[in-house]
């Protein structure tokens, strides 16, 4: 049986410094959802296959289920809750709504974060590049068609 230590972690989450008490066995996903109360990142598989828990850690796309909470000391984390600014939705969020790129919506936070990471890195990706980049995010409802179109639309919007 693993020993379970209590540890204090401080990190910047969506621009706000947060300090919380974690178990040494908590993943970042568990910490976000069960300790901090940010439930936008979802658990779909807990082993890095579905991408529903995608967040940005110091600007890098990670599966938060594969990051230990204790590793996040001093890190800068962006979750889906941090995408919109004030009254303004992020262009990806608007495009997902307008293109009907979600049905049940459980994978949507992961797709939004993953797509943001793509567009931050490459503002004008081809359809093929979008499809390969998003291959780590599973969606079972949409067949991906409208998601790809939404990312293309948001990219165009963000370039203009």
């Amino acid at each position, binding site marked *: *049986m*693993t020993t*379970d230590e209590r540890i204090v972690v401080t990190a910047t989450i969506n621009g706000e410094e947060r300090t919380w008490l974690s*178990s040494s*066995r908590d993943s970042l996903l*568990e910490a976000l*959802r*069960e300790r901090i*109360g*940010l*439930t*936008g*990142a*979802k*658990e*779909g*598989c*807990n*082993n890095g*296959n*579905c991408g*529903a828990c995608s967040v940005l850690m110091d600007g890098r796309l990670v599966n938060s289920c594969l990051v230990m909470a204790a590793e996040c000391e001093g890190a800068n984390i962006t979750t*889906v*809750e941090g*995408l*919109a600014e004030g009254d303004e*939705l992020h262009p990806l*969020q608007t495009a*997902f*709504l*307008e293109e*009907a790129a*979600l*049905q*049940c*919506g*459980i*994978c*949507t*936070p992961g797709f*939004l974060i993953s797509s943001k990471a793509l567009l931050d890195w490459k503002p004008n990706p081809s*359809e*093929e590049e*979008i*499809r*390969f980049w*998003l*291959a*780590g*995010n*599973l969606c*079972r*409802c*949409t*067949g*991906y*068609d*409208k*998601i*790809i179109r939404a990312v293309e639309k948001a990219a165009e919007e963000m370039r203009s």
Partner: protein
Amino acid sequence: MVATPEKPNTDKPAYKVVGTRPVRPDGVDKVTGRAEYGADIKLEGMLYGAVLRSPHAHARIKRIDTSKAEALPGVKAVATHADFPKQESGSLDLGEGSANPLWLVENVLAGSKVLYHGHAVAAVAATDLHIAEDALALIEVEYEVLPFVIDVREAMLPNAPILLDDLRTNVRAKGVDTPKDVPTNIALHMRLEKGDIEQGFADADVVIEREYTTAQAHQGYIEPQNGTAFWNRDGQLTIWCSTQGIFSVRSQCATLLGLPESQVRVIPKEIGGGFGGKLTVYLEPIAAVLSKKSHRPVKMWMPRADIIRATGPTSATHNRVKIGVKRDGTITAAEVNLAYAAGAYPGSPVGAGALCALAPYDIANQRIDGFDVVTNTPKTQAYRAPGAPASEHAVEATLDELAEQLDMDPMELRLKNAAHEGGTNSAGQPWPRIGATAVMEAIKNHPHYTSELHGEDTGRGVALGFWFNGGMESSSSATVNSDGTVSLILGSVDIGGSRASLAMQLAETLGLTLDEVHPHIVDTDSVGWTGVTGGSRTTFAGGWVAYDLGEEIKKRVVERAARMWDVETDVVSYADGVITGPPDADNNPRSMTFKEIAKQLQRTGGLIAVSATSRRNTQGAAFAGHIVDLHVDRETGKVEILRYTAIQDVGTAIHPSYVEGQLQGGVAQGVGMALNEEYYYDDEGHVVNASLLDYRMPVANDLPMIDTQLVEVPNPGHPYGVRGVGEAPIVPPAPAIRNAIYDAIGVRMYDMPMSPRRILEELGPQNGSAS
């Protein structure tokens, strides 16, 4: 006999809201992470639950000792089968299918036997999930391991290991004798028959018979099953969960826990996909028992490996099809034999599979036999058009071979035999207005079908798909607010846009915009009984209710206006959100907008609140037709989808974007079923690919854009012509792909999935690249 209408009526009125593509009412919550799904709940004092599962495919439980787990600090309760009251055999309605409470409780937590690898055995609630998981390791279970059977054909053999000692075959087949009173794994033998099948085959010029297998595939919803329960000291049980049917969860939990339904309240959370897999309960009753014992709320959700091992795959099947045709393409007879693995307890969707098998075609002489067979695999659950993909695959694949033998275009063969209004289905019921011919014509005329296909090892295939769609009962209420908006209270959970599709139908009826109708999904105490979100019934049945609510509101608004103007109601009219009466004494025209009268309702007799229930079964059947182009890599056996077109008779598309989305999503699941998805069992009956890496669902770069063509043949049994959309599109992909693979490399595939390994096996050592 009514003549076949060559051109079905596709006229529809000019709508203002129906047919537009507004942003869905729950959209912002779902793109900002605010939407609350089942596992997002947090309650004061909440515990976390975890489940211990069987390491064996089949074993007798000799002893369970939970004392060490109970002693672990932080553990607050432990549950086993012994905590549930004894059940009687019966039938609980699950919306799509039913469950015998005797078996349902055994599936929730095993009694004397475990019947599959991953079968739930015991559960723990603790202050922390990690502690609960630690405690599972402290539970001692002594098993007597038994022989097991995974394959449906082997399970039907007389010497097969028996899963359920009391099971006897229920024979619902005319002319078949009831077998002897001996234990069996065959729970049901059913038969549909019409015409004279022997004569039909005698009249045929060409007869072919083929056998097919399909693999166990999982619904693959991304959100794990979950359930949170609080059993208050006053005896009231509250359950929060992600389910396709709150009332179904209520009746299942009440029955399994021995409570009156009034003592159970089910509060729906957002649901992250279901596809039929979230109709039955797994964790909810366990969380309830753990809460009763600990006096604290208990939250549970399933690890992904448990979801794959212990929740709802569809049946693995073994099917035989024999079809006879005349030279001119007329089908004279068809014989279909379906064996469906039900998993651990009876209840495969073989009945629906049988009804769907030949549904797109008008065949005078036919016999369909179906067998429901228990196996040491997870209890199957409904999965999108339950039962239909396997049976229709067998028929569509056989038709393709017949077309080749007759040297006929595969669509011509189908058109020649298309089901039509006035004909009858396999159960002998007459068809109302249906779109079978319209869809087949649309395929034939589609630029994809008529285009040239180039490239080596590249092929094209087509196939049809059919699903009945559901009607059943839905209830709603609506309140006119003083600001001129309407609150729409729903009992149907929203799995993919039903808030939008139902609110749009109410808005259309009242001449309002979608923004002026606010849909809310509420708990079992706050709305009338409503069936599950499944079977492609919600937009149909809920739409009927929305229409009825709108008509009732209009009637009351007109009555109110008449009273305010002091005129008779029959001289007041309502159109496009405006109430118009006769001119006043000075001959000034009199009218009010809905917003204007709403503001005055409270002062003129009170606000208007209405409720309605619909249990109409006038839903229209859905026909889908798909065209696929693909390339087969002879070296790896990998199939690449190059182009895909999904055509479907959708009745009326209320929100076309979400209708297209249903087609595209169905195609993706169908492609997964066709090419990759299956369970791998080792020699001990263990599922060895219980992860989303090894259970390989399509990802974004496995698919091209999926073109859709919505054929709209309005359903005459619905005010807006809704038919139901979601199920049918999962049916055609596998046979269309199979037919395209033949076109590409000249190999006929009889076993699904058509994975690289199977394709390489079929290509054999003669395969050019392999030599």
